[in-house]
C-alpha cells in the first residue's frame, strides 16, 4: 500500500477534499485525526449501529452494503459516514473493506467543529455531495 510508506501529511495533502488547506493546517489535521487500517472483509461502519465517524479512504477499496445488498464501491479519496453524522441517525449502510483499507477518521463528535474551522473542506464536501445527488437522480431506466 502506497500510504504505508508515504508520510501521513503528504498522503492527506494529495486528497482533493483537503486541497485548500495550508501546510500548517494539514499538519494540525494529521496530528488531530489518526488513521486506521482494516483487514479485507472487516466492517468499518455498521448499519443501524450508533456512534459512527467520518472516514476518508487513503488507500484500498470498500463496498457499501444495505440490507445485505451491495450498492456501491468506494476507493481512494472517497469518504463515507458523513450522512449519519449530519442527520444524527445511525448509519443506513454497512461499509466493508474489500481489500486492505486505510482511512483517516474524524470522530462523530468532532466533525462539526472541524468543518466550521475549515470551511474550504466543507465546501468541497458539499460539491461532492451535490455530484452524488445528481448522479443518484439520473434516470437510468
Amino acid at each position: 500500500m502506497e500510504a504505508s510508506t508515504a508520510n501521513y501529511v503528504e498522503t492527506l495533502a494529495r486528497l482533493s477534499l483537503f486541497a485548500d488547506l495550508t501546510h500548517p493546517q494539514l499538519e494540525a489535521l494529521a496530528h488531530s485525526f489518526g488513521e486506521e487500517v482494516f483487514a479485507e472483509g472487516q466492517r468499518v461502519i455498521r448499519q443501524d449501529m450508533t456512534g459512527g465517524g467520518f472516514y476518508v479512504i487513503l488507500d484500498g477499496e470498500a463496498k457499501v452494503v444495505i440490507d445485505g445488498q451491495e450498492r456501491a464501491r468506494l476507493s481512494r479519496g472517497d469518504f463515507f459516514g458523513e450522512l449519519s453524522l449530519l442527520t444524527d441517525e445511525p448509519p443506513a449502510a454497512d461499509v466493508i473493506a474489500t481489500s486492505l483499507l486505510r482511512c483517516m477518521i474524524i470522530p462523530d463528535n468532532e466533525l462539526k467543529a472541524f468543518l466550521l474551522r475549515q470551511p474550504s473542506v466543507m465546501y468541497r464536501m458539499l460539491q461532492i455531495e451535490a455530484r452524488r445527488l445528481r448522479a443518484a437522480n439520473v434516470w437510468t431506466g
Partner: protein
Amino acid sequence: MVVVGSGPGGLQTAYSLGRTGIPRCAFISRDSAPGGMFRRFPLYQRLISWTKPDAPFERGTREYEWYDHNSLVGNEREHQALVPEFMDRAFDVPARSEMEAALVEFATRGDVRVRYECEWLGTRRDDGGFVLETSDGEYRCRVCVFAIGVTDPWVPPIPGLEAVPHYVAASAPEHYQGKSVFIVGKRNSGFELAQGLLPWARRIVLGSPRPVDVAMLAFSPLSIRYLSPYTEHIRGGTGSYVVDAAIERVERHLDGYRIHASGTTWEGKLELESDEVIAATGFRAPVLDLPTLGVAMVNDGRMPAQTPYWESVSVPGIFFAGNVMQASPGLRKHGATSSSGSVNGYRYNARVLAQHIAEKHFGIRRERPTLDGDEVVPFLLGELARAPELWTQKGYLARVVDLDEADGFRDAGIVPLADFVDREGDACAVAVEYDADGTIIPVVYVRRGGHLLEHALPPHPLHMFDTEEHRQQLATSLAPLRPTTVSARS
C-alpha cells in the same frame, strides 16, 4: 508459540497463555530482568495511573482491580494486587521503582519463565509459520505475539529536529536550571518534561500543531501532568507557554537553538531562541523487519495495524500485546478510544488474547459455564455494575452470553465488542460505554436471527448500574432471546 517481551504486556500475556494448556510456549526478552519500559520510564519517575491501596473491596478480589490500574491480574490471590504492596503512599500514583518491583514480583510469584537476554533480531516465514531469529538461536512457531512496547524514539521529518535530544535522552532536571527550554510536542511525554522542569527552567515553551483538547484533558489521567504547565499558560502566568504551531525547522547555533514555526490555530510566524530543545515527539514500536513480512502499519508507520483480537490486519498469525494494542481502536463509538495503551486496559486484552489464540490456533476450547434462564439478567447486571474489564475497557470489551438451541444460555466470557457485533448466532452482550455527551452508560446488545439490536440503559449519578430500573430495562432488552429458551426447555 513465542511471546517476545517482558514488560507488563509480555508478562501478562505469558502468564495467561501459560495457563491455557498450550503445550509449547517460549517467552523471550532482550532485557536482563522483568519490567520492560518501567525499568527506565517515566523519565521523571512518577506514573500517571492510579492505584488505591485501600478501596471498598478487598485486595485480591476481581472488584478491587477496578481501583488498581497498575497491577497485573492473576488467577490466584498471591498473584493479585501487587503494586499496592510496594507503594509508600507518598503520592496517589506509584513511583516507577514501585511499579518495577511489582512486575518483578508478579513474574516470580506467577512463575513466568522468560528467557532473558535473548534478543529477537529478525523474522521470516517458514512452512505456514514463522521463524524468529534471536541472539540465542532460532525459534520456530505457528503463532507469535510481540509485546515489544512503543518505546523507540520517533521524530517527525522536520529539518534540524533530528539533531536535538529526544525525550529518552533528556537530562536530569537540574541540568536545565536557569535555561530556556523549547519542548516539541504536547502530549504525555512533553508535559511530563514540562512539569518536571517547572522548578528548574527559566522559561518553558511547548509547541506542536495540535491544540490541547481541554475537554479531554480534564477527564484524562494525563491531567496529573498536564495541569500545572497548561494552567500556568492559560492564566497568563510566568514562564510556561503552550503554543499551537507547526515547527518548520530548528537551527543550532553556538549558544543554543532558533526555532521557526507557523501558527496552526492562529495566523503568523514565530521565531524563538532557546537554550535547549527537546523532542517529545512520541515513540514507535520497534517492529524490526515485520513490515517487510507484510505487516501493515498505522500512525505514520509507528504501530502495527491490528484486528479487534490484536492480530496483524495483513499477516495472520502475528499478534501484538501490551501498549501497542492501542492501535486496535475498536468501534470508536462517539470518538471514544480504549484504554489499551495503559496497563489497566491491556492486562485484560492479554487474557482475552491468550484464550483466543488457544481456541483458534490450538483447538483448546475454554470453559463456557451454563446459565439458567433466570440467572442471565442478574449475571449481566452484576457485570455492568462491577466488572473491571468493562469499566476500564469502555466500549472495547464486552461480557457475552451465547444462546444455543440445544443447551440454552452459556457465559461466553469477555470478548472485544467489535468482534461480537460482527459475529453470527443468537447471543447478547453488555458493555460500559460513553454516550454522545460523554456520559457513562450501560449498553445491551442482542443478536437474534441475524439482526443486532442495541439498547442504551440509563446513566446513574453514582454509576450504580444494578438498580431495579436497570434490571427491568435489561430484562426487557433480552426479551427477544427468551421465547427460544422456553421452547427449548418445554
